[in-house]
């Protein structure tokens, strides 16, 4: 009398959101990193707003990417240590679905807050007015791609002690197309061009990642459990 159980997406999403809620301080660290690094730029380069406006779009995207990269290896680390990852691997649901739930939770706790805070950075880096809406759209979509691709790297390095550094080496090349089209969306808008085509390509990258990354991450997790 096996009831039909859910696909494993919602329980794992709820669980990870609850876990993140319990450690709210930890959720804030990518945000603080994001804002803090943006104060480095005027110090390092120039406080002069005309020049800052030139590089604001690209810099915001670089910092969002680094902030996501910073938080991605926490996706599986704690589950691997306390054994719940082992339970996940042998649960009847197909592995990619619970993983998608975990990745969504990760995006809701890092990608989305970054996107919501980015207008503040836009002000600080004197981003032209036309750039704000495209920035919000491209960051929302882009950070989702970053979380998905990052999950594959996190799955590959979960059982390694110093996995964090290796994770960025593995995942960085996959991030490059995302940042190209993400920052292009903003610079197109600032130049007055139609900024929907680059956003559409970013959407295509997102669609591909949603389809493929959970599968690759599931395959990778099955291997690390054998390590």
């Amino acid at each position, binding site marked *: 009398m096996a009831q039909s159980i859910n696909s*494993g997406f919602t329980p794992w999403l709820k669980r990870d959101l609850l876990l993140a809620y319990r450690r709210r301080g930890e959720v804030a660290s990518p945000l603080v990193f994001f804002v803090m690094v943006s104060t480095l730029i005027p110090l390092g380069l120039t406080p002069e707003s005309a020049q800052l406006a030139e590089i604001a779009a690209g810099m915001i995207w670089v910092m969002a990417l680094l902030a996501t990269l910073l938080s991605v290896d926490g996706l599986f680390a*704690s589950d691997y240590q*306390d054994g719940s990852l082992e339970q996940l691997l042998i649960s009847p649901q197909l592995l990619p679905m619970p993983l998608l739930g975990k990745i969504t939770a990760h995006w809701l706790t890092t990608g989305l807050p970054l996107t919501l805070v980015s207008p503040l950075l836009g002000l600080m880096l004197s981003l032209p007015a036309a750039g704000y809406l495209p920035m919000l759209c491209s960051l929302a979509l882009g950070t989702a791609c970053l979380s998905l691709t990052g999950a594959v790297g996190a799955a590959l390095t979960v059982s390694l002690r110093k996995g964090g550094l290796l994770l960025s080496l593995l995942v960085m090349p996959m991030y490059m197309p995302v940042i190209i089209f993400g920052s292009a969306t903003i610079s197109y808008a600032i130049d007055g061009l139609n900024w929907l085509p680059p956003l559409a390509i970013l959407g295509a990258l997102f669609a591909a990642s949603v389809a493929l990354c959970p599968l690759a991450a599931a395959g990778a997790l099955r291997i690390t459990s054998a390590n």
Partner: protein
Amino acid sequence: MSQSTLLKVDNLAFERDDSCLFENINLSLNSGEILQIEGANGSGKTTLLRLLTTALQPSAGGILYKGVALSQCRYQYLSNMLYIGHQPAVKLTLTAEENLRWMVASSAKINQLSIDEALDGVGLSGYSDIPCYALSAGQHRRVALARLLISEAELWYLDEPFTAIDKQGVSFLEARLQEHLHRGGAVLLSSHQDLAIDNLRKYSLSSQAGQTQ
């Protein structure tokens, strides 16, 4: 319950980096039976359990669930199985009640027993809303063992369940196992202790441990 063989393992072998951990392991488990795996440390008890729970792939041999190869009936097999490993899989920042609710939410066969009744059953009645980092390791194991009260799965795989639990916990667990067997379930556990459970068979791994190639 018909005397159906729930689980049959024929000449299972597992290799780790070209050194053969064990080979031609043959065992079967009928409903209402309990099998204790014995063996020195490192003889592969945990590895055998992880092979049975499909966490690891065997390098040779096969596992049959009710006469059907695992690859054909993965969903039925995994939803009818419960595995408690060395680590209790308890999230420290969650309370015992939340931990149990989440563990149950993703398992298929559960009875109507409420979370609180299960926690009372394992003697954690007062602790259900305290975050687990305030509880001891023994209590963490009790949270994991509370799953035994709720789960309706027939096949139980327990890896050294008696470690880090006190005398009262041991007798409680033995009673639960006995009850599970009467209901027609089957248990396969690895342990060094002698268990006061009737119709218990032992299977020693060290004698079967294969040499390196």
